[in-house]
């Protein structure tokens, strides 16, 4: 399969916001030693290169369909990205300290597309509820702060006449409310991936004109489509998901700390590692 690599490398180097970056030790794909790598997390892509100043990317990992696990290894503060499908490799990393390890685990857990998509649905519902609760509040025409005004970045890319404003009743593919995957007592943190679609009841509803002035993008001639409100229980789903994530992280860190104290070694699951 051919991946248009130029698009990927461009995405890494462009001015779009970085979600997290820093040095991590990454277990080699051919050699088994851990190598220090500058890692940059943007969206669901984890880029890595030899150093922060390097312009060439060594590689990228697409963070969809994987879980994040603590793992015991020769290195302290280790964690791994694990795919459940047989034949898919495990990526092992180690951080410099526990704070960094926790921070990276949290970031990688919530990097997948479904998580953000679910959060978006949740906020969209809250927004509509807020508008309904404060009918006299005229939504002023909202101008998105024009960050990235240098021109060659994403703000320029979005000056398309055809852009829609806000999510319509068709949720993006593969996104949707997650049934937060059955979170067991196991030591794995399940990244939200491939969520099942919620049963969405959509009823096209035309909102009063004044509210439609609130646009997220600073584009004056936007075609204002019908606003479809859908009665999905996004809030419950994301709240639960978030709670579960938080619990899992705490449990995981606590378990790990206990085991370190007791001097026990965590047995990793046997995974086919094609190296």
């Amino acid at each position, binding site marked *: 399969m051919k991946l248009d690599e130029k698009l990927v490398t461009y995405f890494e180097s*462009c001015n779009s916001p970085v979600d997290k970056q820093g040095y991590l030790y990454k277990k080699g794909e051919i050699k088994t030693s851990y190598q220090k790598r500058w890692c940059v997390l943007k969206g669901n892509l984890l880029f890595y290169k030899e150093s922060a100043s390097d312009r060439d990317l060594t590689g990228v990992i*697409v963070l969809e369909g994987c879980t994040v696990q603590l793992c015991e290894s020769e290195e302290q503060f280790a964690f791994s990205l694990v795919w459940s499908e047989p034949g898919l490799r495990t990526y092992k990393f180690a951080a410099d300290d526990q704070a960094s390890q926790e921070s990276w685990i949290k970031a990688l857990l919530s990097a997948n597309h479904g998580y953000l998509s679910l959060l978006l649905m949740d906020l969209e519902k809250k*927004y509509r509820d807020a508008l309904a609760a404060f009918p006299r509040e005229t939504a002023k025409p909202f101008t998105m702060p024009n960050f990235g005004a240098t021109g060659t970045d994403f703000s320029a890319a979005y000056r398309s006449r055809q852009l829609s404003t806000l999510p319509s009743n068709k949720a993006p593919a593969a996104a949707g409310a997650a049934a937060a995957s059955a979170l067991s007592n196991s030591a794995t943190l399940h990244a939200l991936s491939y969520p099942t679609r919620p049963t969405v009841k959509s009823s096209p509803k035309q909102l009063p004109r004044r509210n439609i002035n609130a646009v997220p993008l600073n584009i004056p001639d936007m075609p204002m489509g019908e606003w479809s409100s859908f009665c999905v229980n996004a809030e419950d789903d994301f709240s639960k998901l978030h709670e579960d994530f938080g619990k899992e992280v705490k449990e995981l860190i606590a378990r790990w700390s206990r085991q370190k104290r007791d001097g026990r070694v965590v047995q990793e699951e046997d995974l086919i590692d094609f190296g």
Partner: protein
Amino acid sequence: MRFNEKELVFLSRQPSEMAAELGMKGHKKGDVIKRRLVKLVVNFLFYFRTDEEEPMGALLLEQCRVDREDRQSFSITFLDEAERKYLFECDSEEQCREWMDSIIKASYEFMRKNLIFYRTEIHRLTGKDPLEQYGISDETRFQVSNGLQMTSGETSSL
């Protein structure tokens, strides 16, 4: 540049609402329109030769622009380069609109902008920051001012 190809192929097999046979023309000179099974999964656009299991290719849908070309076709322009443009022919106006819509909404940039918008508006209307209850209000990716890439040092947003 290394990438986890097997995982990407695995991703391409996930269920998707947006999967259809469309006419597709690559960005290189001399490329002609071919029927391909096009499938949108998260922020990737996969395309397959019809009846093949493994995708021919994958396009990352970030930093791109979607334009209507004519009634039934649209294009995706990448890297802000007029030459790097892929053309897609749909079977109907409705289908064309659906695809354009879905592709636009697939990117993290789109999601982030909307999240920030909703967050700001909800706060303005209710006085409450909706991200606070989730404990994620400090994450850099949800900050209004966050439009430029971090320059140096480890970010400790989480």
